[in-house]
């Protein structure tokens, strides 16, 4: 089947999509957007987290056909998304820069999903408590960092965004 999706503001069309394919597969293998990761394909790790019409979801659990006509934001579009939100011209979204600066990236396979989830959290709640951050990120597994630096990074991004306002 054919699927039309707007990803990161740009319209895409994919042909010959097998009906059992997930949005994740279409993004990674058909649209050349492999930033969303394929760690579990069962909704347990969050590494494929994307925004679907604004809502964070696991792209592996969205059937390709369900994404027809929808708007998707992936990690590849996160910086743009943040620029549009803030009106500022930073090369990276605040959470992206904070993940680098805080040492929250090791192997980095969980990072794209965590960034999409953390960015959405800060959009909703610019000054979250530690418990709020932990709850918002509880669907994103990381095997390298033990999460401490990830927590640091979200705190850092929140603080920087707060200062910038």
């Amino acid at each position, binding site marked *: *089947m054919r699927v039309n999706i707007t990803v990161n503001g740009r319209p895409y069309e994919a042909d010959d999509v097998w009906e*059992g394919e997930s949005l994740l597969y279409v993004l990674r293998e058909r649209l050349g957007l492999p930033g969303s990761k394929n760690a579990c394909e069962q*909704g*347990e790790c969050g590494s494929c987290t994307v925004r679907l019409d604004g809502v*964070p979801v696991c792209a592996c659990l969205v059937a390709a056909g369900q994404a027809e006509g929808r708007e998707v934001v992936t990690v590849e579009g996160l910086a743009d998304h943040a620029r549009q939100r803030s009106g500022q011209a930073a090369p990276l979204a605040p959470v992206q820069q904070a993940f680098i600066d805080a040492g929250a990236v090791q192997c980095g396979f969980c990072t794209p999903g965590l960034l999409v989830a953390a960015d959405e959290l800060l959009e909703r709640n610019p000054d979250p408590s530690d418990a709020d951050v932990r709850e918002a990120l509880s669907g994103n597994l990381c095997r390298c960092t033990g999460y401490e630096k990830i927590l640091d990074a979200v705190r850092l991004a929140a603080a920087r965004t707060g200062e910038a306002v």
Partner: protein
Amino acid sequence: MDFLRPAGWEEALAAKAEHPTAVPIAGGTDVMVEINFDHRRPEYLLDLTRVAELAEWEATDRTVRLGAGVPYTRIIEELRTELPGLALAAHTIGSPQIRNRGTVGGNLGAASPAGDAHPALLAAGAEVEAASVRGTRRIPVEEFFTGVKRHALEPDELIRAVHIRRADGPQQFSKVGTRNAMVIAVCAFAVALHPRTRTVRTGIGSAAPTPVRARAAEEFLGGALEEGGFWDSGAPLDPSVVRRFAELCAGACRPIDDVRGTAAYRRHAVGVMARRTLGWTWEAYREGEGRTAQCA
């Protein structure tokens, strides 16, 4: 495999009538896992996410008609007052990403004994609105589950909504998992006080082939509350009453040993959760929650 995308409810029913083997898909949180892992290759996938009315809920005096496609996140945010037990249960499901997609309709359709919504529905009192081109019927949720991952729907039927009794007293939900988040229930327990009818209802998850109510426990406690005049007095419950209630709840389990936990542990944990959640709900009732409702 064919992908059917009905734009409205009538179209969805027609598609299901034409293709009774079609697998409905909403949040995809069960169906897509089965497809990704090659456990299932349905002939047709019936996408219900374009049927707008499924994602709506409406409340009347006594019930909430919850569209089958309302995601858990919205239940947590919008229905905490009307459906506190279900909102608590929804909050224990999966992760934020899963709660953004998963639906009560999907949970019922999967009919897993471990479905987190089920105990809360059993305790609150609910009916499943099943529809087909032949018409609509309501199935009490107790009768909906017919076996492990089996339910009472006919092949041409879809779940339109769930009619859930609006809370008239405190409700609680508690679930044991071996992780502090994002975990399938080892077992779960829900309790709802219904001051208006002076009854107590329960729901047990993952401790029997289907979700079940602990009816003996409900009857025992209902009787004890009535006899002791507790509904009116709001007096503290006698510990022996709470203990007996918990024992009867544990006794209602028919658990198995599996990779997630032992049968003995499940029975034990249901007893502990029953005792604690009854304690919390009764304490809330004594503090006034729902004590005005009975006068209405």
